[in-house]
């Protein structure tokens, strides 16, 4: 710890409990930060691309997650270092904003930091590096816009969308049946998409998983599944043209919120109360019956008596349905959630063409399918798979694919994948670098080098010679002036990504570059780290 001394050799105390804190400043602080950021990027580097490897993460409670998704790896990694936490957040913000490319953004940031370290060693001021990066990122984003292509799709022509989703899924463990899953994702997104407003509400897509069966059995259900069964074992298991009453009040005697007491002091009172109670149950069931409901879905439990009455009046019912599911059911069936029995009216009932109970395997797991809903916009993707980790990973992969499809509907510009966009940007940035007078020129050039690291990692993970492959592709791009050449990860034989049908979304790529640059700038600007030393 650097200390200041006065003329008598006594130290000045500036910070509270100064001697218990460690402090790094100046170039040391930057170097420490950079090395932390690089270490995080190094972990993710091998997960990039279709041949990327997975990581096993063991949580503090001993649960095992196996994943390839950058955001998930970082989120569960239990990171302690402050700078590393910034990288984790970087990946998460890419996840929230775009949903895909969470690994790529971290690898990119790591490469930028690595380049920055070299420049720092040459004595270039960090702020100048940051500014150079900023300029370069602007060039790259503009260039991306320039090489991007619009493509057309419609409700009938979903092929391009499916192709893009397949690019996303090919890096996951589910790539065995990526075609199947990509089609499911695209159909799901299209069925909830508002093509006029170019908006997709992903909340309308529910992703459910159940262990067992094979991945190929994964299906898209135009409706909703609820992990519940009928409240009474003898209620009908299948209801056609169901009119659904969605209730948030229990089939139980009322519990007024104000504190009260009912005193029973005579036999008469005891009897009236008893009659009242019976009538109460009867009324509740009768009300549901009167409005014409053929299925009751309730957020709370039922009393035994009410349950039997429902069964008796031939009114199937489902109890303990969670709040979120209840809302989804309400949206899907076009019903209203009714908080009181008095407010039940025929208009508030939801409608569904078919409600059925389905059981799985040898255990008595049952699920309720609500299909052919009045508002067919809500869909469910129902995943099956060999084990729990597989299902969790499939869920994450489907989420990525859904996000990609959504982004394409919002903005139908695409760039070609396989590292081709990065290589092309790198060429453009490199060319622009010479135009800048001053120190920034070096930073801009470094940025171009950093862009190369993504295709380099791709080649490395695919078992190709990274430097050879990259330089070959780069010269090919310049020679033929065609930005579609990338790394041939799958060993198909051509490296024209247009022929391989490997695309990514334009906004996803742009966001990656912008976010990575921002975080790197932030890290570079830190020149003093004060932390409590170990106790």
């Amino acid at each position, binding site marked *: 710890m650097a200390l200041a001394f006065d003329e008598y050799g006594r130290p000045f105390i500036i910070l509270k409990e100064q001697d218990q804190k460690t402090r790094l400043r100046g170039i040391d602080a930057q170097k420490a930060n950079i090395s932390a950021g690089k270490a995080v990027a190094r972990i993710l580097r091998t997960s990039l691309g279709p041949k990327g*490897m997975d*990581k*096993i993460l063991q949580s503090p409670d001993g649960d095992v997650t196996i994943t390839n998704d950058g955001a998930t790896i970082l989120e*569960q990694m239990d990171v302690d270092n402050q700078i590393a936490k910034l990288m984790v957040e970087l990946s998460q913000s890419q996840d929230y904003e775009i949903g895909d490319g969470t690994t790529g953004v971290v690898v990119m940031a790591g490469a930028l930091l690595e380049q920055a370290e070299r420049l720092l060693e040459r004595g270039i001021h960090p702020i100048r590096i940051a500014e150079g990066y900023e300029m370069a990122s602007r060039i790259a984003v503009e260039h991306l816009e320039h090489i991007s292509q619009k493509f057309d799709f419609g409700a009938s022509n979903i092929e391009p969308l499916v192709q893009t989703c397949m690019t996303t899924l090919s890096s996951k463990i589910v790539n065995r049946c990526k075609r199947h899953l990509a089609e499911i994702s695209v159909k799901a997104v299209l069925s909830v998409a508002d093509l006029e407003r170019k908006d997709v509400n992903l909340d309308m897509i529910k992703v459910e998983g159940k262990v067992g069966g094979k991945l190929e059995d994964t299906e898209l259900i135009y409706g909703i599944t609820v992990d519940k069964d009928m409240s009474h074992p003898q209620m009908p298991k299948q209801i056609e043209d169901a009119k659904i009453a969605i209730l948030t009040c229990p089939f139980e005697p009322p519990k007024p919120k104000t504190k009260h007491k009912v*005193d*029973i*002091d005579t036999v008469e009172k005891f009897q009236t109360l008893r009659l009242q*109670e019976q009538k109460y149950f009867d009324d509740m069931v009768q009300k549901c019956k009167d409005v014409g409901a053929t299925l009751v879905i309730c957020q709370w439990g039922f009393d*035994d008596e009410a349950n039997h009455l429902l069964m*008796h009046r031939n009114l199937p019912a489902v109890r303990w349905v969670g709040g979120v599911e209840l809302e989804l059911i309400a949206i899907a069936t076009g019903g209203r959630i009714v908080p009181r029995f008095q407010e039940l009216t025929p208009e508030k009932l939801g409608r569904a063409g078919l409600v059925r109970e389905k059981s799985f395997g040898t255990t008595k797991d049952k699920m309720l399918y609500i299909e052919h809903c009045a508002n067919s916009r809500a869909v469910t993707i129902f995943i099956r798979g060999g084990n729990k980790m597989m299902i969790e990973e499939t869920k994450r992969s489907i989420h990525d694919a859904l996000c990609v499809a959504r982004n394409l509907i919002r903005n139908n510009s695409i760039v070609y994948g396989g590292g081709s966009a990065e290589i092309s940007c790198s060429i453009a940035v490199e060319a622009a670098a010479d135009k800048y007078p001053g120190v920034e020129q070096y930073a801009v050039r470094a940025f171009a080098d950093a862009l190369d690291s993504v295709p380099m990692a791709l080649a490395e993970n695919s078992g190709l010679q990274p430097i050879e492959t990259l330089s070959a592709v780069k010269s090919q791009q310049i020679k033929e002036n065609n930005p579609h050449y990338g790394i041939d990860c799958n060993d198909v034989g051509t490296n024209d990504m247009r022929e391989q049908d490997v695309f990514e979304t334009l906004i996803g790529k742009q966001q990656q570059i912008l976010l990575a640059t921002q975080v790197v700038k932030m890290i570079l600007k830190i020149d003093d780290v004060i932390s409590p030393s170990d106790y």
Partner: protein
Amino acid sequence: MAIEKILKDDASEEKGERARMASFVGAISITDLVKTTLGPKGMDKILQSTGRGNEVTVTNDGATILKSLHIDNPAAKVLIDISKVQDDEVGDGTTSVVVLAGELLREAEKLVAAKIHPMTIISGYRMAAECARNALLQRVVDNKENAEKFKSDLMKIAMTTLSSKILSQDKEHFAQLAVDAVMRLKGSTNLEAIQIIKKPGGSLMDSFLDEGFILDKKIGLGQPKRIENAKILVANTAMDTDKVKIYGARVRVDSMSKVAEIEGAEKEKMREKVKKILGHGINCFVNRQLIYNFPEELFADAGILAIEHADFDGIERLALVTGGEIASTFDNPESVKLGHCKLIEEIMIGEDKLIHFSGVEMGQACTIVLRGASHHVLDEAERSLHDALCVLSQTVNDTRVLLGGGWPEMVMAKEVDELARKTPGKKSHAIEAFSRALVAIPTIIADNAGLDSADLVAKLRAEHHKEGCNAGIDVISGSVGDMAELGISEAFKVKQAVLLSATEAAEMILRVDEIITCAPRKREDRM
């Protein structure tokens, strides 16, 4: 400058080769653990729980063994998980799936050591799995049309499944039990309708299938012990002091006489309820909840058999069996469906009295009463029987059947080998490895039976090069035998699930190149 520490204090990180090695070692050691239980001559394991009483389980069932282990290795956890899923989904083959996955990984380890990239191995494994599945599909036998033959298929499958368990001595007896029970279900996979009651005492041979329904309860005092043409009301209602359910109600009195009055009213209420129940014209009343002395007395007076405290499963099953509905209110006797059965009587099994409902309306349900020397034997017998029932019920739905005794593995291995020869590139090594892993299963079966596995498997391989061969390992005589003649069969669904889940799990573990273990959650120190 030293690289900053990124992870928290106790967290650890293993990379690349080390990570891969850790997961291989974990998975393979789990495999070695359950390996010896595979096949008809497999050995059992004793599991002692750390919980109170140090309970002991003796079992041969892969899923049960793995479930009870406390494992720290993440890759091992993956294997345990697939075994659990196999148990839930098809019920049998829980050991085979783990062994196959483990063998796949053992082969993969060798390939990785030979500098073949895991991704190449995975793509080879995938091709091989697909090819193996097709090979099985070509050789399946489907006797759906022929009921006689199908029944004998079922019988064979049940015997094959049971032969590796403790029940193998009496496997014919139990196979018959299981087949009869499943045939009664008529295609539904709802195993709830088959009730298994365990009563220590007697020998395993004394176990029997009862076509009716047995409720492990006693008949109330002073009530008829035998009812013919019973009309049964199945209920779930409070037969104690039937509380007022309106919230906040309480009794508040100011004199003793009032207490008596209210007590009288309560009694009156109960009497009324009983009267209403009687109004249904029943002669047997089964309630899920408690029946107090007072109503019980009333029932006894009316000559009605009242059974209390039937648990929830029992009630549901009884309702299913007798065809009645579970009632909770009794105001409309005409519209409540009553259950019927020909005869209710109290029977003795060993020293316990049970209530036996026979001649029930719906023929679906039945009860299997297991007898045996000790609780451990009974528990294991139940697990074995459960396996057999699961497999049979799945087979009823998917009627495709294969031969057993290592036959399917050899068939698959042969096809996969052929594929390996046709495939160019490094993948062919992985495909070859897949076939070696498949052959490992008959090898282990032979090893466990104390036979010369190398010799037997080589003979078997030679046999399989003939067209349409039915050769498998005959563990009893210790030679290669014709599986069709020996009547050893397995369900296609089980084999397929084993193949697919094992490949999936192996793939998952192979793809990993880094293990990050978070710091264990700190426990609050007590005191």
